[in-house]
């Protein structure tokens, strides 16, 4: 009788009951082989559990990375809103200041008053504050966006790294499971050959009896 392929599929199909490895095995070699099979089975079970954990870790890292990227996008947007709003407010203040000084300039021109003209041409409150707002717009935008979402992008990078580590763990665990399957296959092949040898011996005894 040939025992074949039990190791490779035992973990999924549960084809071999390894609770009592010594049952039906009389030789020391057979008992050792069953012990190896049971150890490999336990190793595979543990690796399968670790594989599930690694997959969960990968999913979690991916979700964190994507959340961080969305967060960075929002920060960039609100930074642009802050910068644009200040620039609009500054521009509007400058326009209003310019229009507001028009009558004073006209009066000074009509009066030929050089001092009054100089005073009228000086930037007023609105023009000055407008200029200040325009100057502040870019830094405020950077401040609100946390430097274009740099912190969130760094978080996304870190989460991406964790995801990569989880993938490597998954690869390693799959390799471990494959290696364990190979060992189990070799063990069952050895067992099979031992059983065949036993059968041959029995036949030889029967032939001799004849």
């Amino acid at each position, binding site marked *: 009788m040939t025992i074949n392929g039990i190791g490779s599929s035992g973990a999924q199909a549960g084809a071999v009951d390894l609770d009592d490895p010594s049952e039906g095995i009389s030789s020391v070699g057979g008992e050792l082989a069953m012990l190896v099979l049971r150890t490999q089975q336990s190793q595979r079970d543990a690796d399968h559990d670790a594989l599930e954990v690694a997959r969960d870790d990968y999913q979690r890292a991916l979700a964190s990375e994507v959340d961080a990227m969305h967060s960075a996008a929002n920060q960039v947007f609100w930074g642009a809103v802050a910068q644009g709003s200040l620039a609009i407010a500054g521009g509007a203040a400058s*326009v209003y200041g310019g229009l507001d000084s028009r009558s004073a300039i006209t009066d000074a021109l009509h009066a030929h008053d050089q001092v009054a003209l*100089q005073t009228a041409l000086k930037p007023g409150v609105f023009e000055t504050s407008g200029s200040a707002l325009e100057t502040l717009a870019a830094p405020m935008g950077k401040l609100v966006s946390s430097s274009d979402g740099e912190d969130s992008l760094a978080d996304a990078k870190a989460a991406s790294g964790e995801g990569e580590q989880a993938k490597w763990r998954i690869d390693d665990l799959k390799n471990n499971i494959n290696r364990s399957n190979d060992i189990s296959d070799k063990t069952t092949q050895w067992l099979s050959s031992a059983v065949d040898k036993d059968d041959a011996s029995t036949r030889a005894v029967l032939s001799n009896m004849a």
Partner: protein
Amino acid sequence: MSTITSQSTGAQSASSAWSAESSATALTPEERLLALVVYSQLNQMDAAKTTVSLSFDELARLRQEVKEAVDRAREAQHHSGLLGAISSFLGGDVAAVAGAIAAVAAVVATGGAAAAVLAVIASAASIAAQHAKELGIPPGVAVAIGIVAAGAALCSGNASGLLHVSDAVKSVACDVKLVAGIAAGAANCGAGATSIGKGAYDKDAQNALADARFSSGQQDVTNFDIDDAIKSLSASLDQQHAVFDAYTQGSKSDQASCSLVLNNFSGAA
């Protein structure tokens, strides 16, 4: 795929065969056990095949999502670049030049007053600072230019009356200053508005890239599922072959033993 389909058909036939044969008593216990194992393995293969099929559909859907998200990101980045260029042009070039024109016009209108001269210097320094990179001016040199300009402004004092201009020129200069100032303010408003639009497109692009990353990650997960299902399928096939081999070998061995025993009996007789 043809193998999988035939195996699926095999699963159905094995199921019906198992149902029919399980009631019959003609089969030996080994044969019934063999049929049960084969039926169980075919069921497992059927489930694995369904998983692979569903996973491939999921993979195709995710690939489409990635493609669409990347297209969305590319389009948003295109719009963002356009608005960024407009914003930079309005806020950098137009506003700065308009501001410089307004400052020069103020100098002309006031006949060279210190405040106006300072405004010109400030405006020139502002333009130099904004275009330092394009002009290839190192930051240190740009700072030095600014300091020298400030010093020159301090030394210039009140130059009122340096320029003697007519009232008509003054009037034109005032108008120019007014229009240039308003134009600078309006340009800054436009720059601000386009900057917000650029931010919105940047956000869209970033969100689309995040969606693409999510779909790409889900593709990895689906690939894990496909790997597992294919391994399960392969393991079921191996197991099935192993069971058939075992049964065949067992039958041969039984036949050989029977023949041997019969031969022995006949020899003894």
